[in-house]
């Protein structure tokens, strides 16, 4: 069968927030752009984001500015963030949000008609632009409609709506193609009919999101199979910070069908409390020393906070996500969990039913419709769920370019921006800021390119053979390999990690890699989910190996990486980044250490010495003192 070929300037893989923003930018800079996505246009995982997009516009509190946002981001990431990215992000987020409004987005408003902003964990001021609790949907729809607007423009100008920007939906990319060192295109298949397609393009932007499908309990959809991470790795790029995975403390655990789906933080913000099977509000037992003076130590004080925030400390249910997740995990492991393996999150005894419905309409709706649980009458059962990976493709902060020429990445698939832990609300703004930068970076890269690279026929043939392999053998059911991988990662490289368990996981992953070589897909090439999963397994296994190997090496606990055997945070480890690359024989992953570049002078001086002292080494602190003296 002849392979369909398309020539483009820029191919964007993924049509979530980052991908669409990148594509819009590259099209606006006059480049012919293809958007390739696994799902239908407009269904990307970005729609799941509830809280909002963090941008220091200062609409609600005028004291807010980019420096405060930068500080909050670095603090949230435990100072492991790529500071240049955090800086760009804080500076540019407001413009990116305002731009959406000019494209038709309708955010909730303040009294004086500006975009309203809400409080969120870790943000000093009200900062999240939002639309109720469906901000992600608004963002994706706005960007989708902006793409359509550009197509309408092209239709008028060129008579062809798809002349400059075209969406290839339900199309999966399985390999990046290269000409020498540089990217030359991508190889993929149409999910709809199983036909192969080759994109010839000098620049590829990865915007494929995360890796949650390697875990059993996850808030992520089936698409999150780490495609971009794996494609980058296979193309020679490096992944950083792969050990840092954010587990959202409150995912639904029951019924099984909705296991992992998020229960928004606002449930706790509005008075919801966590209890174990003995009825105890256990979070009071888990306040870490660094937070002792900021959180209430008695239930009475915690309860007063909801009505009088000025004179009381907040209840420990509102500790950062990683702390709450660990506490829930510990309670369940100690045998004080609910029958279905979570803990109880209760608002029913805390607020009148009408108040719950008014404040938490979508949560009430979600539990009622998905679980047949009335949260005004009974407690919810919740537990940690794999939510977001901080790690990803190592990119240049300003252009989004990876170490492979022509390869760019933005959004969750890129690494560095969020350090070891992401603040709520920073992902939507991250998508917009770095989506645009990656699109611009790709356009600039093309402008400086002397000639278009060409993909070799051998590479295309190899990619085709690889993709067809599962159809050509009658092997193991891919679903069982997938389930085993999910169980392994969930149990052995989950929230709390130990060297022995991680080693065990790595052995299991090795075995699964072999089994994945033998999986077979029955049925034809037309919309065959078994075949699709067989191909996704390679990516999930590669990424899982990265996570496990990096987790084994980092002997400290920080943000989204908690080692039971190394519970403390180490200032020495803060200076080190773990970087994964494909091993020489392409059979696995190797991890190396890399030094974290020191923060620029004008940025580090935005912090107090006392705060820095908690994170950085004596040596770095001495440099800071010298700097301040100058």
């Amino acid at each position, binding site marked *: 069968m002849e392979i369909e070929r398309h020539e483009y300037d820029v191919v964007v893989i993924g049509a979530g927030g980052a991908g669409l923003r990148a594509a819009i930018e590259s099209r606006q800079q006059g480049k012919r752009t293809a958007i390739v996505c696994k799902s239908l246009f407009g269904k990307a995982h970005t729609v799941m984001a509830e809280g909002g997009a963090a941008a220091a516009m200062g609409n609600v509190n005028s004291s807010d500015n980019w420096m405060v946002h930068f500080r909050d981001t670095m603090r949230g990431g435990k100072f492991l963030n790529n500071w240049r990215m955090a800086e760009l992000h804080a500076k540019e987020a407001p413009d990116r949000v305002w731009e959406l409004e000019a494209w038709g987005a309708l955010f909730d408003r303040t009294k004086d008609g500006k975009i309203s902003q809400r409080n969120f964990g870790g943000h000093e001021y009200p900062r999240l632009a939002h639309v109720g609790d469906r901000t992600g949907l608004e963002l994706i729809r706005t960007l989708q409609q902006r793409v359509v607007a550009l197509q309408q423009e092209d239709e008028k100008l060129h008579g062809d709506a798809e002349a400059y920007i075209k969406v290839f939906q339900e199309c999966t990319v399985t390999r990046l193609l290269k000409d020498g060192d540089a990217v030359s295109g991508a190889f993929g298949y149409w999910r709809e*009919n199983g*036909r192969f397609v080759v994109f010839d393009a000098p620049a590829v932007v990865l915007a494929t999101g995360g890796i949650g499908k390697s875990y059993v309990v996850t808030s992520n959809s089936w698409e999150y199979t780490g495609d971009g991470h794996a494609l980058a790795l296979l193309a020679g790029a490096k992944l950083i910070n792969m050990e840092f995975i954010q587990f959202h403390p409150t995912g639904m655990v029951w019924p099984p069908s909705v296991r992992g789906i998020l229960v928004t933080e606002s449930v706790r913000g509005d008075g919801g409390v966590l209890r174990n099977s003995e009825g105890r509000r256990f979070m009071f037992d888990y306040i870490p020393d660094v937070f002792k003076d900021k959180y209430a130590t008695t239930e009475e004080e915690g309860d007063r906070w909801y009505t009088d925030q000025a004179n009381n400390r907040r209840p420990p249910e509102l500790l950062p996500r990683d702390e709450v997740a660990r506490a829930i995990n510990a309670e369940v492991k100690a045998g004080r969990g609910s029958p279905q393996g979570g803990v109880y999150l209760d608002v029913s005894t805390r607020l009148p039913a009408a108040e719950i419905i008014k404040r938490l309409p979508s949560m009430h709706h979600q539990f009622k419709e998905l679980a047949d649980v009335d949260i005004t009458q009974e407690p919810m059962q919740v537990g940690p769920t794999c939510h977001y990976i901080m790690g990803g493709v190592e990119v240049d902060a300003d252009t989004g370019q990876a170490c492979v020429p022509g390869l760019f990445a933005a959004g969750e698939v890129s690494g560095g921006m969020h350090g070891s832990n992401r603040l709520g609300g920073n992902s939507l703004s991250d998508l917009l800021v770095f989506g645009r930068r990656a699109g611009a970076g790709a356009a600039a890269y093309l402008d400086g390119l002397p000639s278009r690279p060409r993909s070799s026929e051998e590479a295309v043939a190899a990619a085709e053979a690889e993709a067809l392999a599962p159809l050509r053998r009658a092997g193991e059911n891919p679903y069982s390999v997938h389930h085993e991988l999910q169980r392994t990662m969930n149990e052995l490289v989950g929230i709390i990690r130990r060297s022995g368990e991680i080693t065990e996981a790595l052995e299991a992953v090795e075995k699964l890699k072999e089994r994945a070589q033998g999986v077979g897909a029955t*049925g*034809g*090439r*037309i919309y065959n989910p078994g075949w699709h999963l067989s191909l996704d397994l390679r990516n999930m296994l590669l990424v899982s190996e990265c996570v496990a190997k990096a987790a084994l090496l980092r002997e400290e606990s920080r943000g989204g990486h908690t080692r039971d055997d190394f519970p403390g945070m180490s200032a020495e480890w803060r200076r080190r980044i773990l970087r994964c690359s494909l091993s020489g024989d392409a059979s696995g992953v190797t991890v190396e250490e890399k030094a974290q570049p020191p923060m620029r002078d004008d940025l580090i001086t935005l912090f107090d010495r006392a705060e820095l002292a908690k994170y950085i080494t004596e040596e770095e602190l001495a440099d800071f003192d010298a700097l301040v003296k100058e």
Partner: protein
Amino acid sequence: MTQTTVDSPARRQRAQIRERTLRTDQWWRYPLVTFIIFTAFLVYATWAIFDTSYFVSPYNAPFSSPCLATSCPEEARLFGFAPFGDWYTLPPGLLILGLPAGFRFTCYYYRKAYYRGFWLSPPACAVNEPHSKYTGESRFPLILQNVHRYFFYAAIVIGLILAYDAVLALIGKPWGLGTWILVINAVFINLYTLSCHSCRHITAGRLNHFSKHPVRYRAWGFVSKLNAKHQELALISMFTVMGADLYVRLVAKGIINLPFA
């Protein structure tokens, strides 16, 4: 499984399912009940138009009010006024019933109900309709449904007249059962009229900047709340008007003969 080639004509086809619907619930109940209720109403209304016992002091039967001809008793005339004079001898209801009937006929709720119940277009959601062609309200005659708002203006007037009749009854016989039946009917008729989609549009729905018209916005909020109950109000007011009308006629005929009637 046979492998269809990607571009074969079968690929551009909908699922070939022979059943008209695969619904297992009692989807036919709504159109059937609608059909029965509306038919009953039409039969009653036809009878009422030609029935002459439409007045018994101080009650005026709603289906024959206002009376605009000299053929009816003086008390039954609107403000004692008979613009049609004495040449008109047909039933008085015929003169004005077209207005409330037109209002209900073009009402967005009634349209839904009789398109489903009478025209089966569609009989219920996801149940195939029996017609081979469909142009809906895009051309004559159904494009005339767009006149709904003029019937709405007329319905306001009719609603006020029924309220006026109720007030007359209140004055004439404050503790009469018929008085209160007329009052209740007038309330529901007017609530139904106000809950109309056209009313909602005229109040402020047509505006794009509510914030610049705070009074109209508040009125819109009120009408919108009523509008959410448009179907209920349409049905309740249909029963109240039918009930009130029948009651007055039965009293007029002496069939109901109670001291407090």
